[in-house]
């Protein structure tokens, strides 16, 4: 089951797993003021950044500890989580910790945010870094006192000699520890969970105070010396080339420094989120540049004419569904024979739209390209892929590109792409100065790597006991030149594959000329709705409790053999016992078994989804408002991501946020195409969930005895089908198309 669940991993991150590689060593060094640097040594270079901060830990003589967060912060909380892991093992008090954001540097493994991998990849390695630091300080103290290390203990920034009660602070020991050789990371011993002082404690985000002062620096807030502002206008139809533009006229407008045509690099760029054709305007003020952009008149090439439209997609899908799928993804048993025998057969078609990420901070990047290389300030999830893209497109040595990872105002997969980065770099190069590129909201919605839409034509047969014995999905999805569009696939092991004896997944592609890509829980954010809703239909048709049917299908607790390790990370095995655990927990917390006692017009729906190693079951209680729109009363979630919640402050927030994000998708979000262009332009046509539509979300973590895994994505998918299943229970109307059309709930067919 598991291979696909790391599919949302940025491809450009070929850093060597999370092991600090053999050519890189943990090393010690002496800080400027006489403190300890616990750092890395790579190819003879001992790492310290411009301010003399070590790769991981710097302890000043006054006991203040600076810990580096090596991964981008996009709102998922890694800038707090990773230093917590180090600080706990190091044995210091959190109030004495200062956190510093790393730059992109080959010395650090895995500098990306994606795939909910921050926790599983870094959980052990970061603790080991902290433990190595503690071991050094213990050794320094033991040496000072002339006693065996085993007689010493460390906590709260102090080493204590047990029998004599003597103490030395970390600050006092730092200089001496700096002279000792760093231990082998694999040899250090980690604390027992009962000894944790920071892990598991409610810990506020390290940037939160600065955010509330307006002092945190997001990508959009970067200012560098001699900086100008830039805007970049691209073809509204993907892949359009600039034929001519009124450049000379634009240059004469107030405040404009420069305007020029930029040529895209290759034909694949629009699909691959690389540099595409456009017109750049550079000004001393962004407002002037953006006002000038509105006066641009650009002739786009014939490619900028397209009849691609959502309506045409829908017609095409309905046509294709009449014939057999173009290719077979998986075939078990004999579906036709089993359907012929089945006492009950159900057919249903499901559809969901394209989605834009709509990070609240529009895409932006600051770049200064010089003869010597490039310096870039970017809110990106994948800085290494960005640097690689800039190097290739501009012909700069990747080693000469410095990337500052700026705090990002949301990402959700959007910033795993670096189109804004390569645009900023190219504009800076052409303008010969530092520029800050900023898109407006319309550009942000109209130039995205969209979550692909899709169509599922299901047919299933039930036996006399209401158990599915045959299951078919003809998945009509999107592709480009005969190849699947990014994240538009149905994995061959997607549930219920393997749990129903006769099963067939087939696929047919519709040609698409628009970029698609990772969006929070790629695949799952779409597939869960279709599969878990249809499963609910099967339960009702077979007279089964939707909970009991799921428990029945997954069967007794079993642990499947895991796939081989990836990126130095052991892939956790799929465990049906954990499925059962969260299903039963959510049923208990939501009073699922008493749902028939709910007042008329109110219903409960349930769904389960496994993704990114996380097991999540959700129940939604919903009905209709007085206006006849969906009204969600409450949502319950049971989540199993292992034995340890590292930071409850972040964990509950991520889970509630992901669930409400999914709710917003179900209720509102849709990107549509007309004449090859995206129709939506701003939040008046691309609606996001607001607080008045936001129900209470109760989250329960089931702490099974498994290594901790990530949480940013797993809670999202189940809410979509759970909501639709609840609305069915409340109204008898089955939602088979997203976003939910309230008119259909009030009147339409069932």
């Amino acid at each position, binding site marked *: 089951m598991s291979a696909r669940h790391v599919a949302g991993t940025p491809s450009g991150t070929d850093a060597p797993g999370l092991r600090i590689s053999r050519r890189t060593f943990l090393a010690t060094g002496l800080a400027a003021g006489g403190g300890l640097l616990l750092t890395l040594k790579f190819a003879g270079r001992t790492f310290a950044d411009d301010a003399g901060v070590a790769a991981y830990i710097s302890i000043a003589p006054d006991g203040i500890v600076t810990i580096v967060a090596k991964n981008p912060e*996009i*709102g*998922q909380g890694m800038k707090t989580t990773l230093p917590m892991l180090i600080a706990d093992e190091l044995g210091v008090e959190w109030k004495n910790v200062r956190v510093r954001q790393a730059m992109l540097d080959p010395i650090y493994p895995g500098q990306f945010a994606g795939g909910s991998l921050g926790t599983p990849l870094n959980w052990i390695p970061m603790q080991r870094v902290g433990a190595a630091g503690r071991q050094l300080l213990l050794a320094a103290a033991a040496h000072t006192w002339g006693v065996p290390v085993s007689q010493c203990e460390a906590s709260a920034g102090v080493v204590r000699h047990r029998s004599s009660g003597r103490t030395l602070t970390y600050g006092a020991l730092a200089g001496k520890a700096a002279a000792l050789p760093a231990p082998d990371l694999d040899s250090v011993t980690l604390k027992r969970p009962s000894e944790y002082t920071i892990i598991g404690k*409610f810990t*506020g*985000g390290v*940037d*939160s*105070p600065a*955010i*509330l*002062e*307006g*002092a945190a620096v*997001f990508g*959009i*807030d970067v*200012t560098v010396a001699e900086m100008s*502002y830039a805007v970049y206008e691209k073809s509204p139809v993907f892949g359009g080339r600039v034929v001519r533009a009124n450049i000379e006229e634009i240059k004469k407008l107030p405040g404009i420094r420069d305007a020029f045509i930029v040529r895209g690099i290759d034909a694949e760029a629009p699909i691959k989120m690389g540099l595409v054709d456009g017109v750049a305007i550079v000004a001393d003020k*962004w*407002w*002037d540049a953006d006002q000038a952009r509105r006066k641009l008149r650009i002739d786009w090439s014939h490619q900028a004419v397209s009849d691609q439209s959502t309506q045409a997609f829908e017609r095409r899908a309905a046509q294709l569904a009449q014939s057999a799928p173009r290719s077979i993804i998986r075939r078990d048993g004999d579906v036709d024979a089993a359907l012929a025998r089945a006492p009950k057969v159900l057919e249903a078609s499901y559809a969901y739209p394209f989605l834009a990420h*709509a*990070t*609240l*901070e*529009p895409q932006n990047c600051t770049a200064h390209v010089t003869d010597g290389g490039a310096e870039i300030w970017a809110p990106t999830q994948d800085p290494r892929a960005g640097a690689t893209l800039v190097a290739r497109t501009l012909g700069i040595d990747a080693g000469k590109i410095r990337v500052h990872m700026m705090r*990002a*105002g*949301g990402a959700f997969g959007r910033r795993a792409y670096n189109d804004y980065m390569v645009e900023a770099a190219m504009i800076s190069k052409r303008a010969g100065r530092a520029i800050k590129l*900023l898109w*407006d*909201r319309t550009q942000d919605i109209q130039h995205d790597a969209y979550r692909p839409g899709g169509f599922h034509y299901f047919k299933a047969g039930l036996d006399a006991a209401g158990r599915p014995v045959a299951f078919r999905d003809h998945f009509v999805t999107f592709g480009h030149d005969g190849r699947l569009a990014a994240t538009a696939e149905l994995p061959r092991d997607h549930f219920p594959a393997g749990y129903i004896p006769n099963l067939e997944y087939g696929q047919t592609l519709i040609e698409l000329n628009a970029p698609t890509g990772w969006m929070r829980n790629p695949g799952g954010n779409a597939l869960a709705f279709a599969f878990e809703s249809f499963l609910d239909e099967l339960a009702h048709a077979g007279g089964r409790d939707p909970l009991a049917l799921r428990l029945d299908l997954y069967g007794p607790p079993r642990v499947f053999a895991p796939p081989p390790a990836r990126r130095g990370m052991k892939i956790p095995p799929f465990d049906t016992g954990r499925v059962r655990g969260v299903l039963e927990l959510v049923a208990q*917390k939501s009073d699922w078994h008493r749902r028939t006692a709910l007042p008329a017009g109110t219903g409960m729906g349930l769904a389960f989804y496994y993704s990114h190693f996380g097991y999540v079951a959700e129940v939604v209680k919903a009905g209709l408002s007085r206006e006849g729109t969906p009204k969600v009363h409450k949502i319950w979630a049971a989540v199993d991501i292992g034995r340890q*919640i590292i930071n*409850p*402050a972040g964990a*509950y*927030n*991520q889970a*509630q*946020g992901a*669930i*409400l*994000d999914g709710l*917003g998708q179900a209720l509102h979000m849709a990107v549509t195409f007309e004449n090859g262009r995206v129709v939506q332009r*701003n*939040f008046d046509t691309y609606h*996001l969930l*607001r*607080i*008045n539509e*936001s129900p*209470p*979300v*109760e*989250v*329960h*973590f089931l*702490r099974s005895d498994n290594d901790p895994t990530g949480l940013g994505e797993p809670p999202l998918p189940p809410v979509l089908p759970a909501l639709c299943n609840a609305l069915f229970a409340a109204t008898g109307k089955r939602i088979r198309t997203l976003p939910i059309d309230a008119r259909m709930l009030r009147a339409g067919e069932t």
Partner: protein
Amino acid sequence: MRYSILVNGNRRSVEGAADTPLLWVLRDELHLVGTKFGCGIGLCGACTVHLNGAPTRACVTPISGIGEASIVTIEGIGESEWGRKVKEAWLALDVMQCGYCQAGQVMAATALLVRNPTPSDGDIDEAMSSIICRCCTYTRIRAAIKRAAGLQAPETLEGEL
């Protein structure tokens, strides 16, 4: 054109075309970047500031229309009693995820509490539904407003650990 405006109690002189929105004057001229850009047309509330105490969308407020009005931004809101309480509640509950919308949330919440120190859920919906949080931190925003108001905390939505 040159304009003299009052920002967080300080008189500032700024240069810009008459139709330049206050948002860009604050961000790019005065380097008060805590006020954020989200939509540019008054739909998301990321740019919310106070104009004589009233929550106002800086992205659609031209600099020429400000005159003598007193502007307060996230950088200055902590000076007021309610601003301080709201920020304390925000920190205590760790409301933020990415944090990008939160200046707007704090400005709107403060304006609400000044006007109505004991807001109901419906009052909160009404005052806050114009401020989008793409990370959907709404559960904690609601709880933090109640905490700042000294009202009973909403039922706990976080299970036992």
